[in-house]
């Protein structure tokens, strides 16, 4: 089971954090600090796996963003790399050539897409089509909803 998933920038700014088991805020902050310092300090072309306490850390860099997750002992590291990749593909499909800014400005969407893909730290649905379809469906639902609403001017 995946324990957490973090997205952070090269400067260590956290862009998305998902915790699959409840943790205290202090503990979360410590993990974020440890992960960013550890992963950002890695040299290029080193392997994508690390040991941290009793967790396996799998990370990969996509453009300016690092995707980093913590796995339990019995989890499969290589497949976790592909979980990260599939998530990137899903973001890509939704935003169209996703970049860090998309995730900053639409952070809630990034969370929703992740929820379609993973749940409780396990893969819920691996088919790109199915996930895209259900995100599409909720967007459709959303758009129809919007018609009934008059947005007040900001």
């Amino acid at each position, binding site marked *: 089971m995946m324990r957490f998933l973090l997205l952070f920038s090269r400067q260590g700014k956290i862009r998305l954090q998902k915790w699959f088991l409840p943790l205290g805020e202090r503990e979360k902050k410590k993990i974020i600090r440890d992960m960013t310092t550890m992963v950002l300090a890695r040299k290029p072309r080193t392997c994508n796996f690390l040991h941290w306490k009793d967790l396996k850390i799998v990370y990969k860099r996509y453009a300016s963003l690092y995707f980093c997750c913590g796995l339990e002992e019995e989890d499969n590291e290589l497949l976790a790399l592909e979980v990260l990749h599939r998530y990137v593909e899903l973001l890509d499909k939704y935003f169209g050539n996703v970049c860090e800014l998309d995730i900053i400005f639409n952070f*809630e969407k990034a969370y929703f897409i992740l929820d379609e893909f993973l749940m409780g730290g396990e893969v819920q649905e691996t088919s790109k089509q199915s996930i895209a379809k259900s995100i599409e469906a909720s967007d459709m639902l959303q758009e129809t909803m919007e018609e009934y609403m008059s947005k007040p001017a900001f």
Partner: protein
Amino acid sequence: MPAVSKGDGMRGLAVFISDIRNCKSKEAEIKRINKELANIRSKFKGDKALDGYSKKKYVCKLLFIFLLGHDIDFGHMEAVNLLSSNKYTEKQIGYLFISVLVNSNSDLIRLINNAIKNDLSSRNPTFMNLALHCIANVGSREMAEAFAADVPRILVAGDTMDSVKQSAALCLLRLNRTSPDLIPMGEWTSRVVHLLNDQHLGVVTAATSLIITLAQKNPDDFKTSVSLAVARLSRIVTSASTDLQDYTYYFVAAPWLSVKLLRLLQCYPPPEDAAIRGRLTECLETILNKAQEPPKSKKVQHSNAKNAVLFEAISLIIHHDSEPTLLVRACNQLGQFLQHRETNLRYLALESMCTLASSEFSHEAVKTHIETVINALKTERDVSVRQRAVDLLYAMCDRSNAKQIVAEMLSYLETADYSIREEIVLKVAILAEKYAVEYTWYVDTILNLIRIAGDYVSEEVWYRVIQIVINRDDVQGYAAKTVFEALQAPACHENLVKVGGYILGEFGNLIAGDPRSSPLIQFNLLHSKFHLCSVPTRALLLSAYVKFINLFPEVKGTIQEVLRSDSQLRNADVELQQRAVEYLRLSCIASTDILATVLEEMPPFPERESSILAKLKKKKGSGTVSDVEDTRKERNTNVNGSTDHTTATTNTKPSPSSFVSDLLAAAPPPTNRPRPVPSSSILHMPLSPLSPQAYAVHSAAPLTPFYQVTSSPSSDLLGLGNSSAVNSGSPPAASNAASLLVDVFSESLPVAPLGTASAPIIEENFSRFVCKNNGVLYENQLLQIGLKSEFRQNLGRMYVFYGNKTSTQFLNFSASVVCHEPLNAQLNVHTKTADPVVDGGAQLQQILNIECLSDFVEAPVLNINFRYGGSVQNIAVRLPVTLNKFFQPTEMMSQDFFQRWKQLSDPQQEVQKIFKAKHSMDTEITKAKIIGFGTALLDGVDPNPSNFVGAGVIHTKTIQVGCLLRLEPNTQAQMYRLTLRTSRGSVSQRLCDLLSEQF
């Protein structure tokens, strides 16, 4: 088309986010945020009711602020309001807020649970999924309690949509992980297994994850999943890459599902049914064959997914550990990966090989890769890969290659990354000890270790080398010579000074004959380091000096002068000052006989598990993980028999600890010095500070045997926690007369009948241990048995101390634990063999590892046999391992308690007993007993404040049983009424029987 414009696009939010991004400083950001928070607060408080959109926007802004790392203490109510909106986006944001900012306010939780309930029963799959996600994301006990019944029902209902099934399966998995006691097992479990046959691969994937967790806890209930999993796997493995459509990932058929299925099979031993087993072997062979085929794509995703399945298959092969051909093929495959150009694969191959090394079939095959692994250690650019190489060298080490591996690790240590040095040091120390054929090599290795990486040599390492040198007299001379030489170096590590001081203080006489290492030279050498050392080392050196006074009368004057100097006698450090004063006095007033007695060589250390090994284990075990996870993992390693890693190690290769004991046990009894015999009153003084008190014992009654030398914190010089190992078994005043009597009458002692095959089982102290873990279990004139135990979840460890109260050795000592039927199927007790000889006055420690498999009533019996004098003693004691030891306390609120109480209302679930008080009815004592019993003591639950209420969960390997208890005292009648409710009648009965004896 940039999707950003899809759906809504809350302009206000976007503006706020870019404002924040434009902030030049942290202060500016905080200012902007505070402004926004004030704005939102006023909107929420304002008289004008907000429309859904605005509410959503503000809640989303709060969420953003929270995720930036700022505290948010309001907005929960508005978020909860959004949950009941029938507009999807509002609901969605509401749920997201709730999931991220979990709040424990119980009013709020009731509202949230209501909203979830509505959505679960809405039959709208999108809403149901949102609700299930919220349960999984929050996953609190309150939610688990509220929905533990609904989620399984949704999962197996015939009309549930596939996507909802997937969410329900994983939601249930999540709840089961954090609140397993709340998930009712029932007829839904068998239907879950059949989801493995579902048409929808997404459903199968999610269901497999759930089944893995359930099967780890209740293997028997999910046995049927094995054949279904094999069938499913076989279909995937043999499918063409296009068959599975979107479940094919970069030309690999359903890699996620394949890995899950292989993982599920690792919960079980190899299938017994030959057909299923054959089919599985075929699958595994196919996976191994595919690794040799040319890749279908150059993309790294393809090779990752393919190799993920391959590594998981190899894990299964290693787990089964039954097909030598598969094991060797797996090993060869990993061997290929060791030289692969992908760093990731090299890393994983090293990691997998570590587990392979512990299989007897493949240990030799793994060893053939030693050169590659050593090369990896030298050439890998990536520290985490090098770390794996160290691990593998450690795992593949045996007697045949120990010297090479230790040498390589030592040389790597010189350049190793600081982060892993300590671990390498521990590993080298363990290997050197475990595979030492010559002790000279061992001593050299450890001294090298200190030389190369002194800062990383923990206390345990140098304690250990001293233990071994003390216990092996054939290495003492060599050790003295070697440390003497090592100390010649102009700069040597303080740890070396410690070892040197200790060893020369004990055995300096063995090299004093050589004029190059005469007593004075030895002393001057040690003393030249004195001023550079820290206080504890100086204290140790002072003890070494006083030992020198005894060993070498010719340097007495020189040493007394040193002790007398102001820098010692008036040292600001009270410990040093005290030692200097006491040692000086001792050397002045004591006669040489007394001096020789007081400063006698240290007696051999009792054999015990290597403290280094314990340290390494502790290092590995350090984690942030919650308790649930810890034990789950432990359980995982030995699920359902088969060869797991840990047992494999003990089976195929002697474990380090057993080797260590070999090493010590094999040591011939020292001949060059008297054995400790109380009657001759030889006093042993360790090189530790003398406390005034101990000193008093010395001078006042030098002929009384004394064991406890000191109570100063550094007394536990060899750091093994039980400085009492040599002592507390016998009372200081154990008079010779008494032991004489025992000698004479031992044959007529009623408790130790002569040579009878089965002694009556003694249980007089048994019930005293129900509510506590430590104490004296049994005592007669010969023997005292003390217990210290600790329990965690379904596991326990018991330290049994056998104190020989006599002055004579116990021979052929053996202590074993017997679990009669049906207990042997309910409780695993693993006993470490005890040393067959217990010296007079000595104490022997034995460790029992206990695992509770299911609930039980009987308690195991400890059988002790030994020869004392001419007769065989046979003692059987009931060991206080009782069901309540496996309690984990559960705190709960009054409302929850009564809800659960109501749920456990079947007549057989409740057991009640009314009984007379045997002790005074003191409230505090009663409270302590209930807590000692293992449950949480719940305050404010029972309306009557004089009643006691407790709750806890009994953890066994197979099931967990939630228990509630209520104790009502009636002081007038001096009676109690005890009521227990648990989900299992037998558990209620047993707990009631145990606890009612305590008051």
